[in-house]
């Protein structure tokens, strides 16, 4: 995956869009335009302690002066969101990467069905901006507990108009993925939100081809029963063989040996560290590499191998 520039941006506005979701707008202190991006893209945000977290851009891709993100405070999370809520006020400096898009809108679709649950609405807002700008057919299903707890609801209404369908569980209106119905040619489904929502969408759209269903998660699959085993890797370029102990990641071992690997989430979500491999059995534990690419691509931050594997490094 490609390298991305990291910029020291300034918080231009910071406001709570719900009691626990902070909406931030960043500007560059000296450049009028930020690197361009497409709907579905995310940026990395670096915390003061060096943690890297991914957030979808939720603003208008046509606005080149600002990056907008929304961060839900997760008090029981890994600490990134709590830090952001406490520290990112107007005028603060934030270390933000250029955007990357693992969740793009599909070209040549007749219709786009966007499904956002809670904070998962953020990439959908950028998609809606893009679809309105290009005059494409879409609908946005926005699922939340209540209007008060629906992040950026006013923006969603303003962008989508009557193409917004709001599903508020406290009002007894729950999104029924069953309404997706049978497969329709040229219709693409995009979903982002809690795992149970994504599971429900996948179950309801069981007959749809994978190519027409797109989901984004910012949390790696939970597999608490996974037991890591040691293995060996060979570097195709030099023939060097390195041992990966059970308690270390392949990424960490590569770095120990001076091999510079880009990385970001180190959870198997962002795809920064993905590299090629050949002749080996890889245990894929990421959620970013598409099935069709897993035969020769792996994410060394979380994925491992049985006994041995040769890396295209």
């Amino acid at each position: 995956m490609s390298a991305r520039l990291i910029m020291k941006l300034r918080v231009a506005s910071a406001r709570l869009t719900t009691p626990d979701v902070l909406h931030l707008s960043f500007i560059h202190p000296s450049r009028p335009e930020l690197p361009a991006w497409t709907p579905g893209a995310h940026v990395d945000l670096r915390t003061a302690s060096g943690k890297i977290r991914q957030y979808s851009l939720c603003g208008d891709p046509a606005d080149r002066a600002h990056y907008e993100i929304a961060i839900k405070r997760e008090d029981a999370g890994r600490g990134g969101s709590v830090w952001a809520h406490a520290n990112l006020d107007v005028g603060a400096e934030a270390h933000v990467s250029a955007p990357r898009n693992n969740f793009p809108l599909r070209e040549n679709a007749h219709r786009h069905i966007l499904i956002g649950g809670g904070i998962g609405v953020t990439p959908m807002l950028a998609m809606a901006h893009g679809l309105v700008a290009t005059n494409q057919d879409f609908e946005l299903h926005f699922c939340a507990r209540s209007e008060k707890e629906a992040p950026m609801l006013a923006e969603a209404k303003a962008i989508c108009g009557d193409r917004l369908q709001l599903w508020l569980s406290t009002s007894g209106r729950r999104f029924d993925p069953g309404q997706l119905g049978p497969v329709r040619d040229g219709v693409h489904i995009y979903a982002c939100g809690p795992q149970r929502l994504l599971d429900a969408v996948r179950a309801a759209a069981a007959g749809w081809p994978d190519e027409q269903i797109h989901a984004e998660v910012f949390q790696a699959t939970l597999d608490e029963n996974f037991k890591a085993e040691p293995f060996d890797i060979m570097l195709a370029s030099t023939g060097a063989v390195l041992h990966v102990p059970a308690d270390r990641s392949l990424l960490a071992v590569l770095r120990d040996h001076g091999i510079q690997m880009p990385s970001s989430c180190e959870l198997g979500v962002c795809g920064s560290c993905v590299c090629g491999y050949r002749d080996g059995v890889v245990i894929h534990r990421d959620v970013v590499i598409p099935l069709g690419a897993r035969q020769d691509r792996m994410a060394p931050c979380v994925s491992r191998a049985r006994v041995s594997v040769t890396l295209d490094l």
Partner: protein
Amino acid sequence: MSVDVKGPPRPRMIEAFEHAAGAIAAQTPGGATGWRGSLLHIHIAPAASYEMEELDEAICVAGRGIEGDRYFSGLGTYSPKPDVREVTLIEQEALDALNRNDPPLQSGPLKIEPRDHRRNLTVRGVPLNHLVGRRFRVGEVVLRGGRLNFPCKYLEELLGLPVFLPLYNRSGLNCGIERGGIIRPGDPITMLDESE
């Protein structure tokens, strides 16, 4: 998932005239003389992939690099690889050529701002390709040309621009610092005689 808690690797520099290229060039006569150039811009980046930041003055440390730069602190993309990276330079004239699409290697001009090319010093009137194996002065600082710089795919990815081919053979010069000091934009750049 294990976490690597080790600090950044220590920078491993090769002395400019001990580099395979610089060592040979230092024993080979030739090269442009009689020129006088100037320092246009100084840029550093705090760590790998970070945007470059312009400085009004910089402290050059002999045998080490420019204070605050990622290669000074061992945080650069290529820091683990021993090399000549204390200071990197590029010619404004090369950037001007890209900006007029000369030669026309891609569909149109490439506008590369001084803060985008990721070399430390942007200079004008300095024949960098002639300075491998040579000593020259930037203000009060003395640099040694260690090897020609060459473009990397990493730069293409960071910039999102196809700069690899058009920068080839005019990507600048990697130098060691023989004598440290403070440099500022506007400083004159001149050749040093062997006796100096």
